[in-house]
């Protein structure tokens, strides 16, 4: 199970919901960056390809 994250915009000091540059692996609260060579990210993409959807980011 995974959860999206928010992004902090440097220019506007605003929180942009669900646009973070990493995904949270809920099992161990790990922050997984969107790097194609990261094996945890590869596992996440496989999980999505199986038809799963990550949870929305915390508000």
């Amino acid at each position, binding site marked *: 199970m995974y959860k999206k*994250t*928010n*992004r*902090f915009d440097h220019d506007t*000091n605003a929180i942009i919901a669900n646009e*973070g*540059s*990493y995904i949270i*692996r809920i099992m*161990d*609260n*790990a*922050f*997984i*960056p*969107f*790097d194609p*060579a*990261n*094996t*945890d*990210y590869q596992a996440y993409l496989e999980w999505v390809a199986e038809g799963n959807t990550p949870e929305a980011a915390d508000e």
Partner: protein
Amino acid sequence: MTVSINGTTGITTPTYGGSVSAEYIIPVTGFKNRIINGAMVIDQRNAGALINPAIANYTVDRWQYYQSQTSKGSIGQNAGAITPPTGFTNYLGFTSSSAYSITATDQFFIRQKIEGFNISDLGWGTVNAKTVTLSFWVYSSLTGTFGGALQNSASNRNYPFTYTISSANTWEQKTVTIAGDTTGTWLTTNGNGISLVFSLGTGSTYSATAGAWSSSAFLTSATGATSVVGTNGATFYITGVQLEVGDTATSFDNRSIGQELSLCQRYFEKLNGIVYGSYIGSFGASYSTWFFSTEKRTAPTMNFVGTTGTAQNVSTQSADVFATSTYPRIGAGTTASSEL
């Protein structure tokens, strides 16, 4: 003048009239041993503690333990507290906790994945594929034929191998020479170049004839090899693992502790201190940044411990947390992992 070099007897010159023992020959090239932490010295994650993971996890740095069934054994640095072989101070030890009869699809093994950049000179997958030699010290309560394998990243090119442990509870050095694979796809990038596997028990589905390249999938051992997990209390200890170019095993490539740690930290690093940021209220947000000791293979997966703030800007060189109404900080024990 003729200078003869022999991997067993050493160097002989007519002027000197004698020979220099092979153990005193210092390699003149850089990264002779393609295995990192082959002497099992670095253990950032567990600091010597044993692990028994649900499926797979890392024990000493760069070495992953995999088990297809839970609770069949434990593994860790210097488990069993025996004396390592001469010249070594550490080993990786596995102890079986049951007499498990493996099924056809079971796999229990210790594995290190070698980054493609570090085997890019081998020419595997081409007609110029170089021969490599694997050497290691092993100690087990069992005797007989044991197995392992080399694999490519897709696990569709596999080389099962065997070695024999002759005496129980005795350190023995083993050598396996492998002709490089002239076919298949072998990554020479920051992906998985070669996986080296030492089997602790492998079912028939993932076993095949030793000593030949195979395109069968996910082979991790040789047919008929001993199952360590099949005997309750059986031990399997290993150290001094070296994979080098050539058809002869040479002396172990002893690196400085700083070099070895740095090599390990390309794949995993643990923060031992605390990184504080300063709070600038009028700005709206402030950052705490951990600059890694070693640049990572990829942007790493972060596990924050004792951290205040929200993670952002994770790269191969650093990781940030930011906070808008307090002092951000990254706590001791936080880890960055970019394992293969």
